[in-house]
């Protein structure tokens, strides 16, 4: 009946190599999983940002031509009144068209001229008008006027319609009429393929079929003559995207190539992206309206959320009796933070619009709805910040005879403030990116005017992104990505501010 446990050798940690190796393996494996997870995330993040940047950065630039335009007295201000109202009504479209057409004297047919003018933005005359109204001394002079190109031309020049290669002609080429088409003969080895554009003698031919040194081509623009062209006097323009698959046809593309060659078209920063509202013309559309709407909305949210949120947090954390009711309130605040945002939108629609009759699409209502959404976040963050202040500080204040309220407002709240601000900024960033609830209260609309007040119809930045992403023009795709960049920059700045605040004012007790 001896106790077996005693008779057995006592257990010790022995040098069990297999066990140690197994533990090492497991640790290595776990580390590997972690690295893999981070790597996958990083790759996706990089891809996302790269995609947005590549698509969005061109939205911050636009192509303009510096055209010499004669600002004629008769067309703009015949009475020499210098009155902006009269200047405004002058003809600004004509001079620009005139000047542009003068660059292409060969374009004579009515259809071609219309097509040529289609390369100009419909807003070009407005820019010119604004320029002259701001500077009436230009009247009667010859001015260099920046003329905005249309979105398609702009996209072409940004290389987003097709890639283009220009190859200098080798040897002599001869074009001869062959029925409707033309025959091109070169004395060098074949260099042309179907779809190439051959420019010679001021004209252009599109190669239709290639057959070893003899090419069948159709005319794009008429040449001055059909004389043979020697090396250097002709060239080949080769597009990577065929004419049917782009919005700029070969002729327009050749005109734009000429602009490029003459050095008239320049790529400048598109300040109008930040200074103008939405537009149906992509090259004229900007985010100012949406940004203003977002800022107005966030102002309403901030002014509601911060006082109410902080007051609620202070009350719940420091003054409220700890009973069933406050517990219930606490649980519900946490639940509220998890309610889908669209529900807040519906609530806003039912309450603020239908019941209180507040205006539709207004930043005021948007701010109210977002305040509902952000309030739980701010309350939770503020309570955490208040709780993080060591009780010894409050005790110290109570100890010298400060009242509970004095202790909190003089000592606890200032110390909790960085945490509260951090929570508030993160809440605001959340509100800035929020879209769904604003859809419900009618902030999704095509609004050209910049909102001037809290009750004007407005839209918000994320909604502008949503609206633009739906439009077919490639230029709008670029604008969408551009607006996303702006939104992300705002979010990054806000989050960075929150982190900085936390780092700067972080205290250790």
């Amino acid at each position, binding site marked *: 009946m001896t106790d077996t446990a005693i008779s057995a050798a006592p257990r010790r940690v022995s040098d069990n190599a297999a066990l140690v190796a197994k533990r090492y393996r497991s640790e290595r494996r776990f580390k590997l999983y972690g690295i893999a997870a981070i790597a996958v995330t990083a790759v996706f993040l990089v891809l996302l940002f790269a995609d947005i940047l590549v698509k969005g950065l061109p939205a911050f630039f636009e192509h303009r031509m510096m055209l010499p335009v004669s600002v004629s007295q008769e067309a703009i201000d015949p009475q020499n009144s210098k009155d902006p109202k009269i200047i405004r009504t002058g003809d600004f479209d004509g001079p620009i068209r005139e000047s542009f057409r003068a660059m292409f004297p060969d374009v004579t047919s009515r259809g071609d001229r219309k097509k040529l003018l289609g390369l100009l933005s419909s807003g070009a005359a407005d820019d010119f008008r604004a320029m002259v109204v701001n500077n009436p001394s230009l009247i009667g002079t010859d001015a260099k006027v920046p003329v905005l190109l249309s979105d398609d031309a702009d996209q072409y020049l940004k290389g987003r319609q097709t890639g283009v290669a220009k190859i200098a002609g080798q040897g002599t080429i001869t074009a001869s009429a062959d029925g409707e088409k033309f025959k091109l003969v070169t004395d060098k080895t074949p260099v042309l393929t179907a779809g190439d554009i051959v420019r010679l003698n001021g004209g252009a031919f599109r190669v239709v079929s290639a057959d070893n040194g003899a090419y069948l081509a159709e005319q794009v623009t008429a040449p001055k003559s059909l004389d043979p062209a020697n090396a250097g006097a002709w060239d080949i323009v080769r597009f990577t995207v065929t004419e049917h698959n782009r919005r700029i046809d070969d002729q327009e593309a050749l005109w734009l190539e000429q602009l490029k060659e003459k050095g008239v078209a320049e790529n400048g920063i598109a300040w109008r992206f930040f200074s103008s509202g939405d537009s149906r013309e992509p090259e004229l559309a900007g985010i100012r309206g949406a940004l203003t709407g977002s800022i107005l909305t966030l102002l309403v949210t901030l002014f509601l959320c911060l006082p109410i949120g902080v007051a609620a947090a202070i009350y719940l954390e420091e003054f409220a*009796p*700890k009973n069933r009711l406050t517990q219930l309130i606490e649980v519900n605040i946490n639940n509220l933070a998890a309610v889908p945002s669209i529900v807040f939108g519906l609530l806003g629609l039912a309450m603020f619009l239908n019941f209180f009759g507040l205006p539709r699409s207004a930043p005021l209502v948007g701010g109210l709805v977002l305040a509902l959404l952000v309030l739980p976040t701010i309350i939770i963050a503020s309570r955490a910040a208040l709780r993080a202040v*060591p009780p*010894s*500080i*409050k*005790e*110290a*204040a*109570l*100890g*010298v*005879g*400060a*009242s*509970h309220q*004095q202790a909190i407002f*003089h*000592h606890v709240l200032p*110390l909790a403030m960085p945490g509260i601000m951090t929570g508030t900024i993160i809440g605001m960033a959340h509100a800035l990116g929020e879209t769904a609830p604003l859809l419900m209260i009618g902030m999704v609309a095509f609004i050209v005017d910049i909102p001037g007040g809290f009750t004007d119809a407005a839209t918000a930045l994320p909604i502008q992104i949503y609206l633009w992403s739906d439009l077919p023009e490639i230029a709008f795709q670029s604008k969408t990505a551009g607006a996303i960049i702006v939104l992300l920059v705002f979010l990054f700045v806000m989050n960075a501010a929150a982190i900085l605040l936390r780092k700067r004012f972080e*205290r250790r*007790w």
Partner: protein
Amino acid sequence: MDTMIKTPVADSAPRIARERPLKIKARNVDVYYGEKHAINDLSIDIPDSAVSAFIGPSGCGKSTFLRSINRMNDTIPSCRVTGNIEIDGRDIYDRTLDVVQLRARIGMVFQKPNPFPKSIYENVAYGPRIHGFARNKTDLEEIVVTSLKKAGLFEEVKDRLDHSGTSLSGGQQQRLCIARAIAVNPEVILMDEPCSALDPIATARIEELIDELRQNFCIVIVTHSMQQAARVSQLTAFFHLGNLVEVGDTDDIFTAPKDKRTQDYITGRFG
């Protein structure tokens, strides 16, 4: 009435309590934390212009009683105090008494130095300012300087009054807390293990300070160090398991304790 009181008063009272005027009188005090009975039927007389030390093992209720004297326990929702505590004959648990003014009259120094994360000057000036002690800036400055001098800290910090209070060393922080407490000129200073977070040198300085302050204040100190109690106090009260076991002149308690538990504790047999 007197038959109900277990602690000795009147003739049997400690010498120091007879020599000095009575400052704090506690009778039949019970303190509960929810269901827990933290202090059981405690009665004690604490003399003015003397240091009274509360000693006893952890969890014996000495800090709890200390915090009942300035009603700091009010901040704990589950805490309930019954019985009678009087300061200068005035019941401090009287409903008509303003607890905030009471706390201004009874300063407190905590176990861990807890200066406000503000400047040294602001730390001391806060109390006088909220109580409207100073008529103007010079007045306030004088209070701050006097308090810092009384706390024996002025010479060390006079060139950096605008530095943060938290930048001081532990011992300096604790003296700053004492300066903060005496800036509002309290009648009683409660000290809850004021040296437990300090090194021996800082401790010695605080003890010297306590000895000086004794001239003008009624000081009650909770300490875990029996040597400290022996060094600084004139009256010692031994607590055990929520009971006040024995109270007497410090010399008597440490040389001839009447209760066996006291003897066991001071000789280091438990605690």
